[in-house]
Structure formats: structure tokens, C-alpha cells
């Protein structure tokens, strides 16, 4: 009896050991993953024109159950049972350096059903810098990956496939992509990103063109900027020498800008999911702008935008409707043609030269620095609910259509207001 029991024990331990070995083997097989960093660098001219997309910009084809997780720095697509299938680092950093070299670094991590599938994918992926007919260097942040397909069904587990630009298909279990780009500081760069990306940029001495939707942008110093923003949660810059921004439903913040132009033209069609959209009449709308210091501020077309400007030397608004201009400090001049617009100048420097406003159904608030010396002309036929500081004295007017006031001697600065159906407060 005892002998038989020992025999059974021996057999069981042998089977158990075999099972354990098999489990270890398969768990190793499941955890096994490819990891490869692809690098490519080419010498370029210092003023090379580069256009790049962003890592999240490749086509997804999903059929079946999936979930996505759009976190601070990751965009993850998971399959039927919550298993991660695609994991993209949303942070796309474009470094600039003093070398006349463009370098792309892409790290791919992932796993496939078999070792040979993994090797096949590794060998098929590559970095290509294509040249456009107009001389631009085109860089794909996802190398030669064209599409990611995820399929599953009621009786079918996840099947994820990567389709490359040449049409070849590769089955993968999961894939992680991280991409970084290095360009010459003096290069002219265009970034097109239309899907959930956080773009980080080093100093750029060349021209920077941004065509972004649903994105965040963190820029440092930019010499020349032309931006189209559509539903961008935040675009932040430290210093921009010259900027043209056309935006819809976005938030833009710049610490210091020498020349800023808003709504000069419509946002790029490449920002929009459908090129059929008619943006209608106004080039810039539903945005909020936070600008700390701007020397020359010019608005071409703007509707329903909110501007918070800390310090402005010269402001010129050509066409504006339903906007709000909140300016902490106006140094030199402000010229405005608007409708239904609110203007609040919290401090007008005593050295200002000219304020000229044509508006209807609006509110104007102006606080002038102590010892300000200016003449104020109001169109007398307008309906204005005014509240003027006692130091502002009415003068005799030779022109019946105007009421004239002065603060101080009334000789240095000039204020002209043609605002019908307005509330006017001057302090």
C-alpha cells in the first residue's frame, strides 16, 4: 500500500514539474516583446523646410469592441478584454540643435504571435524621409506605418494588424510607439497634427507653421509663427517675434510677442475633419487669448473672442464683433472698429497718443493714468450712458455733431468715441 502511494507521488511530482515548465515557457512567450529603436539622420541645409505629422496621426480601423484611454501623455487602444493593443506616446518633442542635421528616433515595442512575425515586423519597419516636389522634407512620426486595424467579435478574440505604407500587413499583439525629432534650429518647420497630441518645441529661429486640431502646444522662443488652431485646448509660447494666429475654439497664451496678428485669414482646411466646412465670414472665433506683453497687436477679423492683454503698445482692430478686449496697460494707441464689443482699458498710460473707437451696443471702460492730458470727442447723436470722472471738463464745441471734453490741458493725447447705444465709463 505504502509502496503504491509512493509510486503515485513520484508520478504526480513528475507531471507537476512538466506542467510548471510548460507554464514558465508560455508565460515567457507571452511576456516576450520586441523592442527596437530606429534612428535615421541626414545632413541638410540650415534653412531646410521640414513638414512632419504627429504620432497619433495614423488611421485607425476598429471593428468590434474596444476602449480607448486618452490620458495626459498616452493614447491607448484596448481590445475586447481590456488588453492593450496600441499605446502611443502623445508627447511629440521636436528638439532643435546647432547641427545642420535632421534626426528621427522612433522606439517601437510590441509583441506578435510568433518570433518570426515579430522579426518580420521589425525588418519591415523603417524611417523614410521623403522629399516633396516643392523641396520640403516630409517626415512621418510613425515611420512607414499607415494604419492600425483592430477586429474582434462575439466569437472572435482581438486581431490587431499593422498595415504599412507599401500595403504589407503584420499581425501584432500589441504595439507601443514613441517618436522624437531633431532639426536644425534655423530650419523652417511645419507640423500638422489633427488628433490628440501634445507637441513640445525647442527654440526655433526659422519659420514655424502649426496646423493643429485637438492639440496642446508648448513652444519656447519662435522667430516667426503662423498657426491654425482648431479646438486646441492650449497653445503656449514663451516668446514670439512675429505671429499670425487664426483659430477657432482654442486657448492661446504668449508671454511676449513683438507683432501679433489675429484672424488674417481662415484656418487651414487641413485642420478640419471635413474640408466641406464653411467657416463663414469670421476668421477667428470663440477663442481666448492670454498675452502678457505685445508691442503691435492687430486683429483683422474676430468674433466672440476674448482677449486678455497685460501690456500693449499699439492695438489695431479692423473688424470685430461680440468680442471682449481686456487690456491691463495701454501704452500708445488703440484703434477699433467693432460691433457689440466690450473694451476695458484698465490703465491708459499718460504718454498715450490716440484712442479711436467705433462701436455699437457695447461697453467701454477706460481708466487713465493720473496727470493724463487729453482731449475727448464724443459723437453727440449717439445714445451713450456715460459716467465721466469729475476731472474731465466739457468744452465748447464748434461742431454740433460732437461733444468735446478735456482732461488737463487737453493737448497731448486724443480720444475719439463713436459708440451708439453704449455704456461709457472714464476714470
Amino acid at each position: 500500500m505504502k509502496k503504491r502511494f509512493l509510486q503515485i507521488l513520484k508520478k504526480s511530482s513528475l507531471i507537476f514539474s512538466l506542467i510548471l515548465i510548460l507554464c514558465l515557457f508560455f508565460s515567457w512567450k507571452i511576456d516576450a516583446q520586441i523592442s527596437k529603436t530606429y534612428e535615421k539622420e541626414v545632413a541638410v541645409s540650415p534653412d531646410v523646410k521640414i513638414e512632419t505629422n504627429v504620432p497619433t496621426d495614423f488611421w485607425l480601423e476598429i471593428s468590434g469592441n474596444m476602449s480607448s484611454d486618452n490620458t495626459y501623455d498616452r493614447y491607448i487602444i484596448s481590445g475586447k478584454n481590456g488588453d492593450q493593443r496600441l499605446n502611443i506616446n502623445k508627447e511629440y518633442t521636436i528638439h532643435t540643435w546647432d547641427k545642420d542635421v535632421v534626426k528621427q528616433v522612433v522606439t517601437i515595442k510590441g509583441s506578435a504571435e510568433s518570433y518570426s512575425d515579430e522579426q518580420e515586423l521589425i525588418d519591415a519597419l523603417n524611417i523614410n524621409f521623403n522629399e516633396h516636389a516643392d523641396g520640403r522634407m516630409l517626415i512621418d512620426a510613425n515611420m512607414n506605418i499607415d494604419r492600425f486595424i483592430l477586429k474582434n467579435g462575439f466569437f472572435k478574440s482581438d486581431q490587431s494588424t499593422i498595415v504599412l505604407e507599401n500595403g504589407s500587413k503584420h499581425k501584432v499583439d500589441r504595439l507601443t510607439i514613441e517618436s522624437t525629432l531633431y532639426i536644425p534650429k534655423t530650419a523652417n518647420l511645419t507640423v500638422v497634427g489633427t488628433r490628440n497630441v501634445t507637441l513640445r518645441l525647442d527654440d526655433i529661429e526659422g519659420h514655424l507653421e502649426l496646423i493643429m486640431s485637438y492639440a496642446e502646444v508648448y513652444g519656447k522662443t519662435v522667430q516667426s509663427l503662423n498657426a491654425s488652431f482648431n479646438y486646441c485646448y492650449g497653445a503656449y509660447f514663451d516668446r514670439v517675434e512675429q505671429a499670425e494666429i487664426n483659430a477657432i475654439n482654442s486657448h492661446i497664451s504668449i508671454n511676449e510677442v513683438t507683432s501679433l496678428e489675429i484672424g488674417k485669414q481662415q484656418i487651414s482646411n487641413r485642420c478640419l475633419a471635413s474640408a466641406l466646412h464653411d467657416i463663414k465670414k469670421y476668421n477667428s472665433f470663440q477663442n481666448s487669448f492670454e498675452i502678457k506683453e505685445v508691442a503691435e497687436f492687430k486683429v483683422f477679423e474676430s468674433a466672440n473672442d476674448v482677449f486678455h492683454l497685460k501690456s500693449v503698445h499699439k492695438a489695431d482692430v479692423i473688424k470685430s464683433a461680440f468680442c471682449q478686449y481686456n487690456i491691463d496697460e495701454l501704452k500708445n494707441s488703440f484703434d477699433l472698429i467693432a460691433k457689440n464689443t466690450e473694451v476695458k482699458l484698465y490703465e491708459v498710460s499718460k504718454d498715450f497718443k490716440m484712442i479711436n473707437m467705433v462701436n455699437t451696443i457695447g461697453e467701454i471702460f477706460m481708466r487713465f493714468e493720473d496727470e493724463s492730458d487729453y482731449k475727448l470727442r464724443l459723437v453727440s447723436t449717439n445714445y451713450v450712458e456715460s459716467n465721466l470722472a469729475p476731472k474731465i471738463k466739457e468744452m465748447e464745441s464748434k461742431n454740433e455733431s460732437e461733444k468735446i471734453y478735456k482732461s488737463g490741458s487737453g493737448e497731448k493725447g486724443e480720444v475719439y468715441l463713436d459708440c451708439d447705444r453704449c455704456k461709457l465709463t472714464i476714470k
Partner: protein
Amino acid sequence: MDDFEKYIVENKQKLASDAVDPKVWLEVENEMLRSKNHNYRNYTKMLIAIIISLLIAALSYYFLNPKDEINEETIIAELNLAHYNYPQTVSLKKQKLSEFTLPKDKLDDVQILLQQLEFMDEQYQDYLLYIKENGYQQFIGEQIINFYESKISLLDKIQKEIEKINYYEKKIPSNSEKVVFNI
């Protein structure tokens, strides 16, 4: 030894050779097998019925599930946004706006804001199209939340601007005809 025991001993051989006819055993065995087979057939039938039911259910789910019908309610349910009451808020605000009248010559100005509303609605259609083609994804959900919040704040802005227009219209009435605001 009593009489019965005597009888057994005397007829021992006779009694031992009086075995049961194998045919009887065979009959019993067949009867048992028939009963077993009958059960087996019943189980098989039940199994087939279950499989067929499951197949019918799966096929019905696949074909009857309204995949193409992506509407506001589906999205709201998918996003678990019901507690925000976004569609209801939008509808209430629109209803409120449609009660306003304003001078006809000011309609064009307010039209600027209505065009923004139209543009937003076009973008919303893009979200629906994306969901239809690629399935629901969270980032689209976030964009839809952003859409609703922006739309509600735009509707508030429109109301505020109409109120402002009407405030001045009361102070100094214009000759312009008053029309109902259509939204």
C-alpha cells in the same frame, strides 16, 4: 436439521442447475441500454436546442443591433453623460431664445453667432461620423463634452447679446420691425 434444510440438501443439484435463462438477462440488459440511449438522445436534443437558441440570439444581436443609428441619446448613454443633462439644457436654452423678439435690422449681427453655432453642429456631425466608422473612443467623448459646454456657453452669449440689444431698444426705440428670433 429441519424439513426445509433436508429438502435443500436433497435437491441441491437440481436447484443449482436451474439457472436463469440468458435470454432474460439479455432482455433486461437491452431494456437498460434502450433507456440509456433514450436519455442520451434527450440530452443531445437539448444541447442542439441550446446551441440553436444561442446562435439565433447571437445572429439577432448582430443583425438587429442598430449599429448605424448613432444618435444623441446613444452617445449620451455611451458617455454616461445623462446626469449633465446637456441635450435638455441645450433644448431649454433654445426654447428660451425662441421666445425673444428683436429689431429686424439687428438680426444680421446676431447671425454671426448663429453661424458659429452652425459650425459647431457641423463638427458634431463629424464626431458622429467618426464613431460610426471607428467605434466609440474616449477622445471623441471628450470632444463631445467640449462641444456641449461650448454650445451652452454660446447660447448664453446669444441670450445676453439679445438682452443687450433689447435693453437699448427700450431706451430709444428704433423704427425697425420686431421679429421673433428663430433658432
